[in-house]
């Protein structure tokens, strides 16, 4: 039945940053897992829940190349996320999805990839990153630009180290001015500025950009300066959702339902939306 979630067992919980956790979840029922395996593509989202509290919408942070489990990363902020942050391995939570559209990564094949993420927006980006890195031979140069307010706010620190060590990935890390620690050796500065300095070539390149609205706004300007066209920049939008399947009536921006037509859009598509409704 529609609106009935899958029960999921918590495999592990990892603290990422202050108030930010990653849950690794496995399917309790094989048929649910089969459904997920057949339908999940990178970029899609789900409603994560816990009975008695409700459901919250966030992306599937694990890649489409690893479908034995679901990972989700979220900031503890409301009633549902606060409860989810307090689960232990073995506990049962729920998942409804995967819903929405996806990043068309097969169209990215043979191209350079530029990933840009800010703060807690690395999880959706990371799903695409691993989906591509797990079939690395299909893509050309891979550049990842990631920034957070402070060093403590960077998420997936182990994976950042891993990417840094790889010679087939260029990782550009930054924290906002004032957010650095004495031993911080990477960049200090806002993502748009650091991106401009790193100056990745727009030639045959697809950019995937995720972050808070203010970062997106200025990063788009920087990308334009570097020569990227809005058709070659992909992003993912979020809005409050209840159903996830185009019926509850709240997540639309203008006529576009984020849950059905999104959450993945090109910057050109986002620019065509009524900006006052974002």
């Amino acid at each position, binding site marked *: *039945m*529609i*609106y*009935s979630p899958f*029960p999921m067992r918590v495999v592990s919980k990892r603290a990422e940053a202050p108030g930010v956790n990653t849950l690794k979840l496995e399917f309790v029922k094989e048929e649910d897992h089969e459904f997920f395996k057949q339908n999940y593509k990178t970029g899609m989202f789900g409603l994560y829940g816990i*009975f*008695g*509290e*409700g*459901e*919250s919408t966030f992306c599937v942070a694990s890649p489409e190349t690893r479908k034995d489990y679901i990972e989700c990363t979220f900031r503890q*902020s*409301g009633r549902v*996320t606060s409860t989810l942050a307090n689960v232990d391995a073995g506990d*049962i939570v729920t998942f409804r999805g995967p819903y929405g559209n996806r990043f068309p990564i097969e169209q990215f094949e043979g191209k350079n990839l530029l990933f840009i993420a800010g703060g807690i927006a690395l999880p959706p980006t990371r799903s695409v990153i691993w989906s591509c890195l797990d079939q690395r031979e299909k893509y050309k140069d891979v550049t990842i630009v990631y920034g957070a307010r402070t060093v403590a706010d960077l998420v997936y620190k182990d994976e950042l180290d891993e990417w840094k060590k790889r010679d087939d990935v260029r990782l550009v890390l930054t924290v906002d001015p004032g957010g650095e620690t004495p031993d911080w050796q990477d960049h200090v500065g806002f993502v748009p500025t650091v991106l401009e300095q790193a100056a990745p070539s727009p030639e045959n390149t697809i950019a995937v950009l995720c972050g808070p*609205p203010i970062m997106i706004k200025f990063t788009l300007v920087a990308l334009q300066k570097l020569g990227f066209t809005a058709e070659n920049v992909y992003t993912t939008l*979020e*809005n*409050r959702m*209840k*159903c996830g*399947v*185009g*019926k*509850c*009536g*709240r*997540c*639309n*921006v*203008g*006529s576009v339902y984020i849950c*059905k037509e999104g959450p993945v859009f090109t910057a050109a598509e986002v620019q065509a939306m*009524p900006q*006052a*409704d*974002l």
Partner: protein
Amino acid sequence: MTRILLRNKLDDCIAAWQKAGFSVFAPVRQHEMSSFGEVQKASDMAFDLVLPERTIKDHFFPQTEPLIKYKIGKQQIDSETMTPPDRKRVFFGVRPCDASGLAIDDPLFGWDYKDDYWFRRRDNSVIVTIVCTEADDFCMCTSVKLSPESDKGADVMLRPLANGAGWQVEAVSERGTALLETIPSLLQENSEPTAPVPQVAEKFDLEKVMEWLASKENFESQFWKDISLRCVGCGSCTFLCPTCHCFDIQDEGDTYAGIRRKNWDSCSFSLFTMHTSGHNPRNTQSTRWRQRIMHKFNYYRGKFGVNSCSGCGRCTRQCPVDMGITETLQAISNLPR
């Protein structure tokens, strides 16, 4: 010659339908308010209403709908999916605007992911409409290109006889034909004239309205602020609307057990779109009113080819501050261009 159903056969008609396994619903007066309720006999029905205050929507998309029952134990959580009662229903005396409302919402509940709660009820229900003989100042079906004798969403259509003794009966769907087969002896051949259909004046130029709404520069027009200043955001217009379908999903219960419910929600409320972060894409009453009008007369049409309004006029009739869709669309229609 056409078939008629006499008013004095209505009790037998209800009994025949009940015998055939149907529960019969009709406009009733309950708790100082008119709505659709289950009836046992003709005298339970409120026939003198232009339109009941509450819509038939209540019986297809109820104010609160249990989805999942859950129990939280020490070792495990048990949950059970709930389904709406599986009973056959006849809705008698539905106005054409209310019946149209159901047909308008069908594609929304059906696109891609099918809402079983809506369709189980739709599939088990037969809609018997009565063509209007009276309209009030708020009726606006003709303005949205429907009419007091529209058969949209109807299975059986009744036209009141001029002498008031009953109705001319016509099946307009297979389901309607099947329903009439349960009452053959109660229908009779007759050529009695039917009562005239009321003239409902067009209150605005819908084409002009849709054209103005489709124009991008009007999205941020001062018009929206001016027209919505009176709105108190009570949500009445959305709850009384036969096509408004927005909902919330909430868990209601205590620490150990409860029910996940699909509850009516309203685009008039600020919390409707509020992010956890505090960001709210529609953070003023004017942006919310714009959403309501745009959704009904632009977005919905773009997706499903039909406006999300059946012209019942309840939004204006029952608005506590005398606003409503009619006034807004009239104002748009009259804007200089």
